[in-house]
């Protein structure tokens, strides 16, 4: 979390001018500006940051998107694109002098080609809806972020979203073949192809995960995979989290790439068990969920190997799902971890650092120390297979001191992730939330290059400005403020 969002006033004459220009080609119901109409757009999934946009535009066609962008570009009005609004880093936080461009009306599947195994959809189509649509063909879309019932594929592209099956099936960038859309000037762009590559630079890779800063997309072509015939999951208990961490490394070292490999610590299983009754071992310090999928022959062979490795690595108890219902029940707890934690605490703050797996023990010990230092609890759920941690700091937002301690706690953990060779964000994006931590992860030259890449697409800096990449001035200030592990130099000086 960065500093609080400064309160900004909306310029009424500017607002009426923008509304008038947009209504030249958009119906009145597609241009919102009354406070009560724009309020629902004031935040995304990161609710700690809120700000009303000057205007909300809800186009329905490509041509309307192009004209919104052209109009805003001509008027010098910044544009913030928004999908389903489930993002966790404030990437869709509006601007008081900007247009919030909602892609919610782009909800159609345009083409499904079961032979070529691809689907062409509009960006507002929900992630889970794609797999539902193609299920009759025995196909599915692999990336499955835990918000998959609600999040849209356009937002997934913007954030390069992951999920619990990334280690084997990859992230959004591995499962999207092509995107089409517009630059801020309204120039049509087409990145990728229905072939396996496109000529020239890989602009598709650059666009995916660019957090809406480079282009606005209106069409996404996703790759579909054959549904595995069978999936089974091993649930293993461990007496301490470090042994569980070593067991994860042992599985990989044995040459096994499981379909999913997740860890939850004791505070997390306790929170979840009360909520969904997944059947977790409540005595274990940590549990691992290790899924195998494929043909029945493959699954049988792999499950036997996984059990052997986990047993050698010190698992105290193991259960293998007997049928699909039990498999889904084992996963239900993991997928419900965030809402379950939401029940035991007024608020929680979800981190998203990724670390090399071998440093897991060290980082978990560090998080334990931070719990004592800041007197806040922090259950952990962890995409163990790919080193992506989601520690959840429990706090009460009504207590300003708790909020402040939470921010400090999170900052120290993310900086620890960078220190051990990891990253401040594995799948949730930088947005406004982790913009200061970008100054820890990258040096001046890299940040300058990011700004240069941005200028190549958007010279005037009008598309989602202020997100994802901090200005050099902001970093200079941030670095000056945090030189000695959070100890401010000259702590007695007033700072504004």
């Amino acid at each position, binding site marked *: 979390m960065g500093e609080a969002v400064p309160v900004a006033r909306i310029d009424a004459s500017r607002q009426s001018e923008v509304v008038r220009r947009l209504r030249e080609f958009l119906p009145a119901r597609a241009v919102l500006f009354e406070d009560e109409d724009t309020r629902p757009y004031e935040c995304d999934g990161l609710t700690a940051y809120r700000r009303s946009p000057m205007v909300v535009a809800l186009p329905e066609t490509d041509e309307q998107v192009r004209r919104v962008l052209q109009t805003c570009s001509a008027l010098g009005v910044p544009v913030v694109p928004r999908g389903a609004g489930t993002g966790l880093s404030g990437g869709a936080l509006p601007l008081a002098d900007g247009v919030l461009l909602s892609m919610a009306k782009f909800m159609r599947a345009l083409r499904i080609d079961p032979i070529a195994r691809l689907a062409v959809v509009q960006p507002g189509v929900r992630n889970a809806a794609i797999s539902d649509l193609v299920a009759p063909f025995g196909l599915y879309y692999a990336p499955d972020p835990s918000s998959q019932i609600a999040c849209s594929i356009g937002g997934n592209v913007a954030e390069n979203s992951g999920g619990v099956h990334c280690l084997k099936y990859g992230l959004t960038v591995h499962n999207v073949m092509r995107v089409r859309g517009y630059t801020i000037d309204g120039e049509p762009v087409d990145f990728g192809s*229905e072939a*396996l590559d496109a*000529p020239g630079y890989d602009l598709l*890779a*650059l666009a995916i995960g660019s957090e809406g800063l480079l282009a606005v997309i209106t069409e996404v072509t996703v790759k579909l995979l054959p549904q595995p015939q069978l999936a089974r999951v091993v649930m293993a208990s461990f007496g301490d989290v470090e042994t569980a961490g070593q067991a994860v490394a042992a599985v990989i070292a044995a040459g096994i790439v499981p379909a999913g490999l997740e860890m939850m610590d004791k505070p997390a299983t306790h929170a979840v068990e009360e909520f969904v009754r997944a059947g977790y071992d409540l005595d274990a310090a940590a549990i691992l969920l290790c899924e195998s999928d494929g043909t029945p022959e493959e699954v049988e062979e792999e499950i036997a190997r996984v059990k052997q490795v986990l047993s050698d690595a010190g698992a105290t108890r193991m259960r293998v799902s007997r049928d699909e219902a039990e498999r889904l029940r084992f996963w239900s707890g993991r997928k419900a971890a965030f809402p379950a934690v939401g029940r035991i605490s007024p608020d929680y703050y979800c981190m998203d650092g990724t670390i090399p797996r071998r440093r897991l023990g060290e980082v978990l010990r560090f998080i334990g120390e931070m719990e004592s230092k800041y007197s806040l609890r922090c259950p952990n759920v962890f995409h163990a297979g790919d080193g992506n941690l989601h520690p959840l700091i429990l706090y009460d937002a009504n207590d300003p001191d708790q909020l402040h301690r939470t921010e400090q706690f999170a900052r120290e953990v993310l900086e620890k992730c960078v220190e051990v060779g*990891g990253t*401040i964000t*594995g799948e949730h994006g930088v947005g406004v939330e982790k913009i200061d931590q970008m100054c820890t992860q990258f040096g001046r030259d*890299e940040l300058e290059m990011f700004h240069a890449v941005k200028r190549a697409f958007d010279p005037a800096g009008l598309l989602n400005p202020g997100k994802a990449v901090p200005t050099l001035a902001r970093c200079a200030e941030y670095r000056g403020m945090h030189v000695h592990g959070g100890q401010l130099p000259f702590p007695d000086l007033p700072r504004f």
Partner: protein
Amino acid sequence: MQAVLDAMAERVREAAGRAYHLRLCGGGSKDFYGNSLVGEPLDTGDYSGILNYEPSELVVTARCGTPLAELERSLAENGQMLPFEPPHFGPGATLGGCVAAGLSGPRRASAGAVRDFVLGARLLDGRGRVLAFGGEVMKNVAGYDVSRLLAGSLGTLGVILEVSLKVLPRPAIEATLRLEAPQDKALEWMNQWAGKPLPISATCYLNGELSVRLSGAAAAVRAARETLGGEEVRDGGQFWAGVREHAHPYFAPESPLWRLSLPSSAPPLSLPGEQLIEWGGALRWLASAAEPRTIREAAQRAGGHATLFRARDKSAGAFAPLAPAQLKLHRELKVAFDPARVFNPGRLYPEL
């Protein structure tokens, strides 16, 4: 190694200051690829060595001059591999050249391309600065994904100094089957099979014969062999290496060799010349002296693009021309990374 790096950086700054061009040289195994080579050679072969390899993390980081063969040997000793099965095209092939060329081998359709396995990179840019992007972890969305952008950029954005790649375990068992079929039937089969949970890791169609490689757990390979039928081939490993390295007799004739990248389900192309099909139908090699325009238009109509891969005369341009909006973005990116146009001018497109 720092001295080698400092010397390269100094050379780049000098070239930028005095407005001369550099052409990046690893092992020279892919000098044939792309448009003509322009500039004084900048040898990257001395910047070599594996920096970090943790088999249990499924990640390897190495310097650009590291011989690809050496890297693959280290991985094989630990039962792992580069999943995209890169072609070497010569004994000198280096990791830097492999990533810069962005070419993937027979396993591409099932495993992914070079760019899919790039996790991070260090780059020497056109101002002589060393920049680090991405890292050694599987999931990382901090900042634009510049390291993947470098895959296939043919050295036009800078010197790829170091790369971190995701690696995977080698399959327990591999088997190659051969079936007879006309081209349209083979294309239909390949697309149907790819939509089923079968452990197919490579396909190759030539002259009425479809070769299929199965990779995975012993039980799964055995079951798939029953399902697909055909005859098992003994020298499968050698066959796929020949296809990957273009040592197969198909690639021997002197006529221009085209690489057509198409949607896998594109119907058979009626173009003069002999075709070899890989990647489940998505990659079609064409040895043909037909007009470049005819070939490019056919590829475009089928939803893909055509690269003039090997030819004495590349005046038609090695790569399919870009649409104006696309070209504009390419130019702007080139300016961002290499404002003085030091690196490999014209190798990808004349404008870059």
